[in-house]
């Protein structure tokens, strides 16, 4: 695939339900073969976006372009888009085979082609043994695979997935995450995945769009979002983080200088630096804080007292109080051995300016 034009182009799409704005002027391209995840809390507009792409909702304003064609007003049955529903929506009165063939029949394929295609997709998803069973006779994980097979069978240009892992137990979910990612790679299809689970998003996606109140909060790779969150919302929503409230002081080369209760710290500003003197919040991931016996030569450093430890197996979460910063607290992940040795004496805590992001509020 060398086609560089975007598969989906969402142009200034808004959706209003009465007085509530579910989606506020969304503009976004989705590349071919991309696994893009819309992540956010309920009511953030992620499901509305999915339903607009599927044709189940019509945008109040804006256009949706699919493969160069304006599909804004096209009904679902005309679109080359298929969906895996949250509750799977398997047809209970049809066998697995009939469920999978349903979309093929309606495409007007002849009997032999339908048989060939549904056999192929069932073999691909290891469902061969279940062709004659009814959905009620399957386990949750099997149903999920049937839903996926049914949606993939008509060979859609875009596959929509509406929190399809929500109904699975934790252990199975991890396994299915790997499976989904590998299916996406092998089929080279464009997946549009919607979830409120940040871990799910980080594991599977090529690209994550974090949504909040109908708007895009940040759009980037999982690594980008995790280590360089642009806003407080993203930093808090994805993973655990230390939030440092302070005041903007100025620039030092590429770095941003801030004051944190009398301590001068350096960070970077992925979303652009605020004006001098403005109140700001910075985020440092727990695992980016390192412990040192003496003040480290480079980067940020403060001295802290250990006030609590939580053993987490492979690592330990250590809570520290920084007296010089008016008793503000920080939390750090260290390996379990280091965690055991720190204690009574104050330690030096150090981190790079690259690992601290100054956030948009």
């Amino acid at each position, binding site marked *: 695939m060398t086609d560089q034009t975007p598969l989906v182009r969402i142009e200034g799409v808004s959706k209003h339900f009465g007085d509530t704005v579910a989606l506020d002027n969304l503009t976004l391209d989705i590349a071919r073969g991309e696994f893009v995840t819309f992540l956010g809390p309920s009511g953030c507009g992620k499901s509305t976006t999915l339903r607009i792409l*599927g*044709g*189940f909702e019509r945008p109040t304003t804006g256009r949706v372009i699919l493969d160069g064609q304006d599909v804004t007003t096209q*009904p*679902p*049955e005309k679109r080359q*888009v*298929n*969906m895996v*529903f*949250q*509750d799977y*929506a*398997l*047809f*209970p*009165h049809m066998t697995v085979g009939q469920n999978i063939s*349903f*979309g093929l029949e*309606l*495409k007007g394929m002849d009997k032999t082609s339908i048989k060939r295609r549904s056999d192929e997709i069932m073999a691909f998803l290891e469902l061969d043994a279940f062709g004659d069973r*009814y*959905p*009620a006779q399957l386990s949750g994980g099997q149903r999920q695979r049937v839903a996926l097979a*049914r*949606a993939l069978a*008509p060979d859609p240009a875009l596959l929509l997935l509406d929190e399809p892992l929500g109904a699975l137990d934790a252990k199975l979910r991890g396994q299915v995450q790997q499976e989904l990612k590998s299916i996406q790679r092998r089929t080279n299809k464009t997946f549009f995945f919607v979830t409120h689970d940040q871990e799910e998003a980080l594991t599977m996606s090529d690209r994550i769009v974090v949504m909040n109140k109908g708007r895009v909060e940040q759009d980037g790779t999982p690594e980008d979002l995790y280590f360089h969150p642009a806003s407080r919302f993203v930093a808090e929503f994805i993973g655990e983080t230390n939030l440092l409230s302070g005041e903007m002081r100025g620039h030092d080369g590429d770095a941003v200088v801030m004051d944190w209760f009398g301590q001068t710290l350096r960070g970077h500003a992925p979303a652009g630096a605020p004006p001098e003197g403005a109140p700001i919040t910075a985020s440092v991931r727990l695992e980016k804080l390192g412990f040192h016996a003496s003040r480290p030569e480079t980067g940020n450093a403060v001295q802290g007292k250990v006030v609590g430890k939580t053993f987490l197996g492979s690592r330990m979460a250590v809570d520290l109080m920084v007296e010089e910063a008016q008793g503000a607290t920080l939390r750090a992940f260290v390996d379990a051995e280091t965690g055991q040795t720190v204690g009574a004496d104050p330690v030096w805590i150090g981190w790079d300016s690259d690992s601290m992001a100054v956030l948009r509020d």
Partner: protein
Amino acid sequence: MNRGNRILLSCVYWAFVLYVFVPLILMILMGFKDSKFIGFPIKSWTLDWYTGIFADAEILSTLGYSAAIAVLATLISVAVGTWIAVLLEGRKFWGRTAIFGMTVLPALVPGIISAIAFRIYARYLGIEPGMGAIVWAHAVHNVPFVVLVVMARLSTLPKSQLEAARDLGADPIIAFLRITLPYLVPAILGASIFCLLLSFDDFVRSFFLGGYEPTLPVLIFAKLKSGMSPEINAIATVALVLTAAIGIWAERFTRRMNKDTKA
């Protein structure tokens, strides 16, 4: 619950069972009595009443007539009722409550009043008393039951089912025929059986709207006027066994279907 309460409760229950079943059992017993007069003691037993009714052309043709009316009325009420249910369920439009109310009303009007009203209306429209008029009245009376049963089932159809069908290329009509209708089958079957029994059992409407040919309840009524005899018990027993068998079978069948097709 303590022991005393439990005993009291089971006494009340068995008293109720006796109250319901004793008349039926007496009715069945008397059908086997070898005497023209109903009452104890029963000195000897016979199957003559039964062989009698199965040899009686009038009774057999009446049975067929009643069955034909029931089947026709049921077909009409199921078609109309399902259609109304699909139009009403899950939609909001102006006048919905009023339409729903009017749909259900025929089930609540006392039989005698609706029978008289039908009689007057039929005469006004120039409809002759007879099978057509009876079928019409039965169908109107049965529609509400179909609407209620089908609407109840329809309200449990997840919205995602139809969306999935649309998503896979079905237009709204194909989605209805291939997803909604199969989902409604248990409800439609259940409602059909109920309508069949209601119609088969109806006396008042059939009496007011009938022509010269009586339905089974009307025939029994006519025979009662000329005096009680074990022949009537035999006819009633046959009708009881038939309707009970259909009812029990339908109940089990729809229950199984409901279970099988749970999403």
